[in-house]
C-alpha cells in the first residue's frame, strides 16, 4: 500500500501564499474527496502533492520518502495524476493515449512489451473503451473522453490515483459513470483515490474521507457524516443547508441550500 501525506506544507504563487502549514494524511486504500469553495487551494494542494507545483516550504511524503527528492519517474510508478480538463492533440487515438500511460515503465526507444500490452488492454476494458480504442480522442463524447484519460492513468499501474475535478463538464449520468468506475477500482483493486470535486453529494456518496478546505486551511476532515453537517458547510461555503439521508445510499445529502446574507 502506498501512502501519501503532507507535513507543514506552505504553497503559493509568486508572492501570494495560498496554503499555510498544512498537515494532511491520505489513508491508503480509501477514497478521499477534497471539497471547498473556488480559490480555496484544493487544486493547488493536489498539484503540490503530485509534484506538479512546488511547495514554498514543508514536505510531501510518498511511502515515507520526500517527494521533492525523488526522481520524477519513480514517483510516476507509484502515483498517477489527472489534471483538470486535459487535452489530447487532434487525431490521437484512444489506444495511443492509453499506451502513453506506460511511459514511466519504459526507457529509450519505446517498444511495448507483453506486460505493457496487457495493462493497456485491461485499462481499456475496465473503462469500457475496448470497442472505441481506434477512435480519435477528440471525436469522443465528453464522458468517453474523460474515461479515456482515466484509462491512461490506470495504464500507469499505480496504487495511487489523483484526480482534479474528474466530473467537470459531464452530464449527470456521465458523472456517475466516472465516479462508479473510481469506486470499483477502489473496491476491487484497493487503489487509493484522491479527488478534488465540487458536487458535495457525490463527495458524500463515494468518498470514505472528506477534507473540507477554506482559504488554504482544513476546516473539517472526516467521514461524510462528520463533514456534511450544516455548521461545517456554513463555515466553508457560507451556505445554509438542509441535509437528509439519501434514501438510495443512506449517505448525507443536501436537498436544499441558500446563501447566508
Amino acid at each position: 500500500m502506498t501512502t501519501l501525506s503532507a507535513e507543514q506544507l506552505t504553497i503559493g504563487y509568486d508572492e501570494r501564499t495560498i496554503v499555510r502549514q498544512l498537515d494532511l494524511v491520505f489513508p491508503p486504500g480509501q477514497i478521499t474527496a477534497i471539497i471547498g469553495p473556488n480559490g480555496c487551494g484544493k487544486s493547488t494542494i493536489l498539484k503540490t502533492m503530485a509534484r506538479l507545483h512546488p511547495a514554498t516550504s514543508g514536505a510531501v511524503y510518498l511511502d515515507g520518502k520526500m517527494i521533492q527528492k525523488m526522481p520524477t519517474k519513480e514517483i510516476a510508478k507509484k502515483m498517477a495524476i489527472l489534471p483538470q480538463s486535459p487535452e489530447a492533440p487532434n487525431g490521437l487515438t484512444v489506444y495511443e493515449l492509453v499506451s502513453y500511460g506506460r511511459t514511466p515503465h519504459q526507457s529509450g526507444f519505446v517498444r511495448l512489451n507483453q506486460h505493457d500490452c496487457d495493462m493497456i488492454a485491461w485499462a481499456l476494458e475496465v473503462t469500457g473503451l475496448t470497442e472505441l480504442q481506434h477512435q480519435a480522442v477528440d471525436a469522443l463524447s465528453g464522458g468517453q473522453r474523460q474515461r479515456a484519460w482515466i484509462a491512461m492513468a490506470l495504464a500507469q499501474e499505480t496504487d495511487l490515483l489523483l484526480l482534479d475535478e474528474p466530473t467537470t463538464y459531464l452530464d449527470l449520468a456521465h458523472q456517475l459513470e466516472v465516479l462508479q468506475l473510481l469506486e470499483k477500482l477502489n473496491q476491487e483493486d484497493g487503489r487509493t483515490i484522491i479527488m478534488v470535486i465540487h458536487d458535495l453529494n457525490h463527495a458524500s456518496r463515494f468518498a470514505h474521507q472528506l477534507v473540507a478546505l477554506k482559504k488554504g486551511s482544513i476546516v473539517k476532515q472526516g467521514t461524510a457524516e462528520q463533514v456534511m453537517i450544516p455548521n461545517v458547510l456554513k463555515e466553508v461555503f457560507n451556505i445554509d443547508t438542509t441535509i437528509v439521508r439519501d434514501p438510495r445510499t443512506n449517505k448525507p445529502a443536501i436537498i436544499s441550500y441558500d446563501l447566508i446574507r
Partner: protein
Amino acid sequence: MNRSQMKLKWTIWVLSVLLLLACLLSLNVGVVAISPAEVFQMLTGNGTEQQALVLFEIRLPSMVLALLVGTAMAISGAILQSITRNELADPGILGINTGAGLAVVIYIAFSQTATGSLSASGALILPFFAFFGALLTAVLITVLAWKRGFHSIRLILVGIGINAGLSAILITLQLRLSPQDFMEAMVWLCGDLWATQWQYVRTLSSWLVLLIPYTLYKAHTLNILNLGSQVATGLGIRSNREYLILIVLAVAMSGLGVAAGGGIAFLGLIAPHIARRIVGPRHQAMLPPAALLGSLILLLSDTIGKNLLSPTELPAGMVVSMVSAPYFIFLLMKTK
C-alpha cells in the same frame, strides 16, 4: 498490420516516389537541359564537360541543399508545434528568421562592398552571421519566456514581441542600404537557397546526421509533452529539462536551415501540419513524412522559382508561400 500502419507505409512510399521525381525534374530543367538518361550517363562517368559542370557543381548541390534545408525546417517546425501545443507555431516564433535576417542585413550594411555584390570572403562569413543571429535571438526569446519553467503561451507572446522589435530594426537598417545592397538583402530574406556550394552542403548534412536521429530518439518524449506539461510530469517526464533540449534541437536545425537557405518562412509551419493531418500526431509516425514533405515542397519551389520566369529567378522561400498557402487554406476549409 493495422490501418494506421498501412496508411503510414503508403504515405512514405508515395512521398518518396514524388520526391525522387522532383529530384529528377530539378536536375533536368534549367538553362541547360539535361535529360534523366544523360544524368545516369554522367553518374557512370560519361557525358560532356559542360553538362558535368552544370550537373555536379550547380544542380546537384542546390538540389541536395533544398532537400536538407526542407528537412531541417520541417522537423524544427514539428518540434515547436508539439512543445507549444500550437499548430500555428513554426521556427519563426523563436525569431529564427528575423534574427538571421537582421544579422545578414547588418553584415551587408557594414561590410564595404565596392562592387555592390558580396566578395568571396563575404559569402563564406554570411552563413555564420545568419546562424549566430538566429541563435542569439532564439536564446533571448527563450530566456525572457522562461519563468521557473516552460510556458508555451509565454514563449509565443515573447516571440511575437521580440520579432516585431527586431523587424522594425531590420527595416530601418534596410532602408539605409544602397539599392544594390537592398536588393541583395531582400532576396536573402525571401529565402533563395543561396549557399549552393558543396562545402555548405557538407557542413549542413553532417550536422543533420547528428540532430535528426536524436530528434527521432526523442519522438516519444514529444508525444508526451504534446499532452501538456502537467500530464507529462505526471507520467514521469522531466518536462522542463526536455523542453530545453527540444528547443535547442529546433533552434539548431532551423538556424542551420536559415543560414544556408535564407528566410524560408512558411515551410516549418505547413510541412509538419500536413504530415499530422495524414498520419496523425504520433511523432514516430509523423516526423518522417514531415521531413519528406519539407524536402519535396522546397525542392519543387526552388525548381519552379528558377524556371518559371527564367532568366529571372524567384527565391524559393517566396514560391513556398505562393504554392502552399492556397493548399493550406484548402486543408483548413475542408476540416470542420
